């Protein structure tokens, strides 16, 4: 540990039992980025699910808007240690999108406009645990926060909730994504503090 600087405590930790270990509470909504923010026109936006057998399911923006939506209120936990509680979203449950998808794959790779990828077990996307969201706090999701549409998987660290999501590829083998190949944990459960590989 380094030399302690007198009077420095850091900006964090309104620590309380509601938060996963090592997290601090924030009230703003920080934006982290690994590249330029893509701007995707709704007329050319699409979302696809590709199965392990090569079958493709495709939705345009208009298709997505016709599907029944939900309004989950969830807590967000970023691996950079901030947590934001009680956030309001609107989007389509992945259970709805997977209704007609035939698959026996165990693994999913979410991929985004701009090239970002993140991997997770398929079961973490189903049973009411994940959404394709397009509204935050009642407003259209802005590009810095992942608009027009963002994957939301709030029970995992926020890097799994891919911004600018473009599709999900289903696979029989796990395929580590952008941060998962650069030292971050393959699964990323905030309650088990799985930040880095080996945690």
């Amino acid at each position, binding site marked *: 540990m380094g030399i302690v600087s007198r009077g420095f405590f850091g900006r964090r930790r309104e620590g309380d039992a509601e938060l996963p270990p090592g997290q601090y509470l924030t009230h703003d909504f920080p934006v*982290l*980025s690994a*590249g*330029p*923010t893509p*701007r995707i026109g709704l007329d050319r936006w699409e979302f696809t699910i590709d199965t392990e057998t090569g079958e493709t399911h495709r939705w345009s923006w208009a298709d997505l808007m016709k599907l029944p939506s939900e309004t989950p209120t969830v807590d967000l936990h970023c691996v*950079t240690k901030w947590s934001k509680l009680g956030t309001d979203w609107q989007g389509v449950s992945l259970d709805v999108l997977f209704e007609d998808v035939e698959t026996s794959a165990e693994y999913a790779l979410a991929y985004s406009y701009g*090239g970002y990828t993140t991997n997770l077990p398929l079961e973490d996307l189903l049973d009411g645990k994940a959404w394709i969201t397009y509204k935050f706090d009642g407003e259209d999701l802005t590009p810095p926060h992942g608009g027009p549409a963002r994957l939301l998987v709030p029970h995992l660290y926020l890097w799994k909730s891919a911004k600018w999501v473009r599709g999900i590829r289903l696979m029989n083998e796990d395929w580590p994504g952008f941060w998962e190949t650069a030292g*971050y944990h393959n699964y990323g459960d905030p309650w088990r503090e799985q930040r*880095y590989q080996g945690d």
Partner: protein
Amino acid sequence: MSIDYLDGNALAGPLGEIFAVEVTTAVGTCAGCGAAGPVASLHVYGPEPGLVARCPSCEEVVLRLVRTPDAVWLDMRGAISLRIPMPEPRT
């Protein structure tokens, strides 16, 4: 277009922790488009969750660096090569 990046200069500290030479003056060649330029001129996003350095010509990732509590992860697969200036040996 977003302009929320830094210069490759921002890599000098983190790379100085692992390399014995000043790497930001080295000339890197992008594996995506072949453009060559000093590491200092890359577009750097981050620092959190990690530093992502992209080619100023094609925006492909050239280099990534993640600092964990007990390791540095360095991914340079987006660079064909890195030409590092070295002092000439004394004769």
